[in-house]
């Protein structure tokens, strides 16, 4: 029988990294995700799997350490929280431009500015619409349980190497801090240097006489070359939209109203759906698991049976814009959100929902 352990979402990220063949973690302390690096330092994986763990001098440095590690074809990751992610945006743009794989975890807190250390979901725009400069996208995974924190590290590495692009795990302070039972999946060994050399022909593994030099760069001063590079990136994002949209639905089969919520708010809104059903209101829940690529097609499929949709977020209304784009005016799209780190109860969401459909 598989081993189950009670742990925090943040601890699950760390344990999963070790168990899924991660080569290097580079991070900087920030609440509410410091347990990730603390757990790694406690576990000392450099003595077991050989994984490197390093506390960097800043988030700017950690993301650039990922640039170096990813250039070598290694599985590298970092974690941070909102203000730290703002510092990493430069690096994320470079990683995307240079087509490098890595996993970046953002355990979101409230903003803007120093904001609060309480949970938030106000980094949706930053994660899904760019954040850094230029036309780039990342696959954005939104875990809603400690188990998904564990599972998405492995999935994140798979997707980042599939697309040679950064993958973000966009968690929130609730998911990072809450303790749940986590099933430990079988261990995956780290890749050997020989495997990396023969599999990732682009990686900087040292120029041998049998090949040309490998250069990792995002620079292309020739306009035509640079446009081609951009089209190639856009092609990848299209492929993400075709092949890697992930979502879950709850009681949507006969639903006349659907709430869209992710992360901790999806867990809370499940209870809201149950409250509504008890009162005979046909409410369902759509939980995007990938925020980018967004489950636009699923919303399209649902709209004909719906009277309203509502986006519920720990923000002033960010994901709701993508819901509205998908719905395209066919039914009213309402919004309910709390700010400042306040997490609404299922009852509070239900009251807000009822007010909107009156």
């Amino acid at each position: 029988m598989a081993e189950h352990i009670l742990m925090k979402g943040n601890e699950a990220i760390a344990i999963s990294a070790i168990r899924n063949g991660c080569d290097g973690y580079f991070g900087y302390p920030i609440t509410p995700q410091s347990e990730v690096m603390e757990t790694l330092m406690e576990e000392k994986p450099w003595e077991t799997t050989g994984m490197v763990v390093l506390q960097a001098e800043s988030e700017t440095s950690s993301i650039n350490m990922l640039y170096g590690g990813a250039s070598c074809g290694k599985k590298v990751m970092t974690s941070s929280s909102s203000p730290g992610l703002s510092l990493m945006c430069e690096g994320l743009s470079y990683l995307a431009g240079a087509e490098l794989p890595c996993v970046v975890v953002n355990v979101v807190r409230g903003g803007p500015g120093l904001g609060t250390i309480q949970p938030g979901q106000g980094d949706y725009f930053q994660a899904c619409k760019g954040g850094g400069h230029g036309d780039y996208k990342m696959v954005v995974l939104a875990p809603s349980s400690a188990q998904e924190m564990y599972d998405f590290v492995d999935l994140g590495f798979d997707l980042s190497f599939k697309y040679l692009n950064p993958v973000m795990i966009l968690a929130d302070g609730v998911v990072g801090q809450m303790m749940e039972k986590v099933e430990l999946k079988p261990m995956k060994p780290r890749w050997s240097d020989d495997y990396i050399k023969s599999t990732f022909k682009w990686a900087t593994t040292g120029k041998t006489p049998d090949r040309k030099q490998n250069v990792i760069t995002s620079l292309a001063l020739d306009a035509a070359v640079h446009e081609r590079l951009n089209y190639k990136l856009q092609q990848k994002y299209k492929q993400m939209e075709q092949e890697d949209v992930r979502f879950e639905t709850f009681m949507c089969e006969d639903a006349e109203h659907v709430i869209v919520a992710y992360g901790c708010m999806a867990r809370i809104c499940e209870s809201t759906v149950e409250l509504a059903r008890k009162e005979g209101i046909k409410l369902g829940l759509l939980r995007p698991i990938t925020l980018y690529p967004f489950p636009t097609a699923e919303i399209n499929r649902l709209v004909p049976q719906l009277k309203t949709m509502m986006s519920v977020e720990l923000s002033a209304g960010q994901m709701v814009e993508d819901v509205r784009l998908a719905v395209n005016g066919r039914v009213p799209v309402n919004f309910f959100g709390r700010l400042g780190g306040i997490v609404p109860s299922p009852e509070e969401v239900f009251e807000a929902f009822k007010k909107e459909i009156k």
Partner: protein
Amino acid sequence: MDLKDIIKPENRVYAKTPVLTENVMHYCPGCSHGTVHKIIAEVIEEMGIQEKTIGISPVGCSVFAYNYVDIDWQQAAHGRAPAVATATKRLFPDKYVFTYQGDGDLASIGTAEIMHACNRGENIVVIFINNAIYGMTGGQMAPTTLIGMKTSTSPYGRSEELHGKPLKITELIAQLEGTCYVTRQSVQSAAAARKTKRAIRKAFENSALSKGTSFVEVVSACNSGWKLSPVKANEWMVENMFPQYPLGDIKDR
């Protein structure tokens, strides 16, 4: 004896190292970058470490260093090369990893990264080209620009009151416990270039011995940025730069 009798491999006194590519350099005539590139390529050839060397290029004129030195390269964001090199070396401990950075990159925007990489004693080599100006962006004032020196952002000359004094970053680096070898060299003459080559070779050898960070500053000429002819630029450098940035080993342990 005709020419054919003379042109034989055994009579050859000089040849371009194969570690330098055939690409024509984009650097201005008189610029020090080309000489330093050649020295690095020669050291890599002589040590036989082409397959084991990874270079990290900066933002600035030498962003294209990868076009000239035939090894694997990573092109880093402005100032971040020491962080990039840190991870590369830690994940590939048997490789020779070096950063190649200018004064804007290393001594301005990248001060945090260079300080902490050196303080951790990363087993990397840092080549620091100090020409006291931002070359690629068109000759703006750098942290190492001399007092009174005219640049496009200090058109009346660098003023101590307005901009502070030139930053002697190499002396700061030498204070850090993690560095094993800190030296300041130049390449304006054959003799100076030979000394720089010895310094760079020693730096690379240190990184295999896991002694800590080796840091080689090369006081360099940017004749285009300085608005001087190549010859005059070298003379100006000897007269004005060397008193502010004296040559020689600062630390060797």
